[in-house]
């Protein structure tokens, strides 16, 4: 018996040695073995090498589950269409693009997991996403360390781009711009002096509401109340009764479409708010808002960040979207064009730095790609002419303000009116 045990433990030791010794090998031997191996994706000097016949893989972090899966799906569709279009045009030097879609769930934990998944995969060239700011904050530190640039189509938190983070980019416009423009519109264009501010306690909604609040106060108007609700609430009557007691001239809501629609609708049932103006932000610039608000949506204001989009490109895009997914893009959420553009932007940057080496492999230098994204200039996208600045703000155009009439958004102010 003891002999058996000895043999057995010897075997175990051997197995363990295998396990333990295997670890140092990649690091120690990788540089030496680099040259002869064709399959290797990235070498030590920070290059992505794509063997001929392989795909150029772009990661995507989308909020497919979690609180706002609808816009997440819409953004994914936009990215998929961009990949389809890129490949339909023959890809890049004969290399096709591939979207590696992951579920970021609009949540920091999932964002971290997704980021680590991309960072571990040496074939991932760049990332589009994340959908939500919290999710994107999960991606940031990991992608920064892994030197993978990302372009977010919809994370609007002002803190996402900064001078410290060279891989962080977005085609969405920062909330700072939208909040300030909305405040200007309410005070100067509508001439209101007393507004109530409501937010949905998401980092997006609350951030916007605070920017709006300070904007309004700077312009000399009064903020009668500042209230929060929760994403997913459906009964806002108690909160609105309180807001209404102060008799504001307008209610501003920072948040997403369902809550915005319901607030607009329930305002008509609240004493003191029946005829008060309602304004919300790009999160509510959807078909869903119109549906949720019903007749109450008439006359409400919604701001949206947009570019001087060419109608022709957008119509073409909408048609393709309809064809492939059987839904109109606006049914799901507002950021499909931004998503499409962020992928196209990444592809353009890749095209600028990629080169084919002697073996027929496509070589992309990570550092070059990071700076190439920042130096994109005059890229024609669905949202307009995109130009990235030094901190990664690539959003085109500006803030437009729409008023709902006859069940449709009609622009009343802002960018593109002149």
């Amino acid at each position: 018996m003891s002999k058996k045990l000895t043999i057995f433990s010897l075997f175990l030791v051997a197995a363990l040695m295998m396990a333990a010794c295997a670890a140092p090998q990649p690091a120690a031997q990788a540089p030496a073995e680099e040259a002869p191996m064709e399959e290797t994706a990235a070498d030590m000097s920070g290059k992505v090498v794509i063997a001929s016949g392989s795909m150029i893989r772009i990661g995507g972090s989308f909020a497919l589950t979690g609180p706002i899966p609808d816009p997440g799906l819409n953004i994914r569709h936009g990215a998929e269409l961009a990949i389809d279009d890129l490949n339909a045009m023959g890809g890049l030097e004969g290399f096709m693009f591939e979207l590696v879609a992951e579920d970021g769930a609009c949540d920091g934990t999932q964002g971290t997991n997704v980021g680590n998944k991309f960072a571990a995969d040496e074939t991932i060239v760049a990332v589009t996403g994340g959908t939500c700011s919290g999710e994107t904050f999960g991606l940031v530190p990991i992608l920064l360390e892994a030197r993978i640039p990302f372009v977010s189509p919809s994370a609007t938190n002002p803190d996402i781009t900064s001078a410290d983070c060279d891989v962080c980019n977005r085609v969405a416009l920062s909330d700072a711009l939208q909040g300030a423009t909305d405040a200007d519109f309410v005070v100067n264009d509508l001439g209101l002096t007393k507004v109530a501010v409501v937010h949905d306690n998401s980092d997006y909604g609350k951030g916007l509401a605070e920017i709006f609040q300070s904007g309004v106060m700077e312009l000399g108007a009064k903020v009668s109340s500042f209230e929060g609700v929760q994403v997913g609430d459906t009964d806002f009557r108690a909160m609105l009764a309180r807001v209404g007691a102060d008799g504001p001239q307008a209610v501003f809501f920072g948040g997403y479409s369902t809550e915005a629609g319901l607030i607009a609708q329930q305002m008509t049932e609240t004493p003191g708010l029946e005829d008060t103006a309602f304004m919300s932000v790009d999160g509510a610039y959807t078909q869903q808002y119109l549906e949720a608000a019903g007749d109450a949506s008439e006359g409400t204001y919604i701001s949206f960040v947009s570019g001087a989009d060419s109608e022709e490109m957008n119509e073409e895009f909408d048609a393709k979207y309809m064809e492939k997914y059987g839904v109109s893009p606006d049914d799901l959420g507002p950021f499909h064009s931004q998503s499409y553009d962020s992928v196209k932007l990444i592809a353009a940057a890749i095209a600028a730095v990629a080169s084919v080496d002697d073996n027929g492999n496509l070589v992309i230098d990570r550092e070059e790609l990071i700076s190439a994204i920042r130096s994109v200039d005059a890229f024609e996208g669905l949202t307009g002419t995109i130009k990235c600045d030094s901190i990664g703000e690539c959003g085109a155009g500006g803030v437009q303000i729409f008023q709902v009439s006859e069940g449709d958004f009609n622009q009343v102010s802002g960018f593109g009116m002149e």
Partner: protein
Amino acid sequence: MPVESATRAVRTGLVAFAFLAYLIFIGVPGKIGGSALPVLALISALFIWLALRRESAALSGTAVDPGPGAYQKKPGWEIGPRDTSDASPFVDHLPFSVVTGFVLKGVLAGCTTGLLIAVLSGVSATAMGNGVSIQPVFDKIVPVNVAALIGVSPGQIAQAEVPLLRFVLQVLFFAGAGLLAALVAAAARSSQSQAEQLARLTTRLSGPTTVNVARYAGVALPFLLLAYIAWLGLPGVSVFGSNEGTIRLLITLIATGSGLFALRLSLPGRERTVVGVLLGLGVLAMPFILDQFQNSVMGLVFIFVMMGLGLNIVVGYAGLLDLGYVAFFAIGAYTYAFLSAPFSSPYVSSLLLLLGVAPESPLLGYWMALPVAMLTAAAGGILLGIPVLRMRGDYLAIVTLGFGEIIRLFMLNLGELTNGPRGILEISQPALFGLSPSSVTFGLLSSQGWIFLLALVSSALVAFVAIRLNDSRLGRAWFAMQEDEDVAEATGVHLVRTKLLAFAIGATFAGMAGQLYAARQINIFPENFSLFVSIDALALIIVGGIGSPAGIVLGALALKGLPEVLRGVDEYRIVTFAALLVIMMIVRPAGILPSARRRIQINDPNEMGPDSKIVSDGEAEVVQTAGVAKNAANGQEEAM
């Protein structure tokens, strides 16, 4: 008799169709695309095969003794081979008629499914082709799915260009699937009897040896898997192409889990010590072997192991159902965040400025912050513990749930202190002697690997403390309290102190886990600490086996690790996970690795019938006798 089997076949087809209809409604064919039909056909084949296997098992029982008893022994979830030893002469010369019977049944079942699928897709396609709007919502998902199912593009359906042949093809496909299932079932049946005979023969020849070999194989398995993971990590090795990361993660999860089984399989004493030490070394080597993604997932798994071990003290040892455990996790995370993130929150920053601390530099490093986070969490545990001392059972559950929500809502709304929904950013990373871990380990350890290593070591420590405490008089007092609070008190257990100790120790562990979680996330937000974290922690200790640290590790591997493996099927993973949770509870309610002591499961005497018995797992069957099960209840009534 043929009518009966025909009805049974049709019923099988109906069940398969119901399941497939569910898959169609949740959009699986649209996801699969062109090959949707064959895949669905294969799934239906699986159903039919399972049904035929059950029937064949029942049939072989009746071959010798065709009494009604054989049918009453309806096989439950165990689909595996039943005791067919008596039936072997019958099975040996498998008569031709049985095979044809099988085939007929399989084809009939397949045709039923196929016809129904064809009707479903045909009706939908015709409706859509004629421009009938079924429902706006269905219209969003149906065209793509039905198109994939028929094998045409959505556009063709819209123009009503679907040839009838396509539907015939569908029926044929499913009929073929039924045929395939029948043939497999028939073949397996004959080979099954052969295999059984072979097994009996080997057992007779060398009884204990085979058992020993199986045992050694079980013990060796985790080591083989560890070696395999290491090999997969070598440069140039690529298995299954780009999915390598996920496959390797899966194997890592299995290796860790099977290690626990290996420990249980090994003989107590020297052998177990050797296996334990080697396994420990192997697991400690993992952070160096795995890549960043796998490390990050394993790090999360072991953070949840710590949580689970802490919650287990409260729920498993002391029997206090706590649904708000996330509160202490959050307290730990936020405490560390306040101490280590620059300008973490307006209040804290101004306080720091007042104290003359530069806001950009972290106040305390990871190690210095650790006791602070633990103490804060423990204080939170005691604060929660005091008001709930008198509450029992479900009242305790809902109050703790409320407490967890209150903490989360405060974090969300106390913007001045916690920065509200915008969270706390740039939390500093744990360092080693002031150096970054990768510089100490010469680049062998990624930051995520370092977190994983820390999580491993911390959970080992936590498990050690938990096990030792449970073995001491405190553990006995907890258990006594769980069994009968009043008697425990009358026997000399200081209830207040014992309960508060359970809450405090549990909370301390959660605080540790929370701190590590904050370090892993770097940026934390109130939404990270929702009710679902509590539910996850509770689910993992119950799935793993309440009261058993090894079970908790397994539970965490299954509940926090597997969903990451299932990433490929993104939106389906939660549904799959949820279904697995229900099935798991039904198949193995005591958890994967139940604790030996608590085999006789937690029970409220009142909810059990007087003659009830609980089979906690395959090994032990403990019958609670009628008189004693009623004891506590009667004991209370005796008070008058």
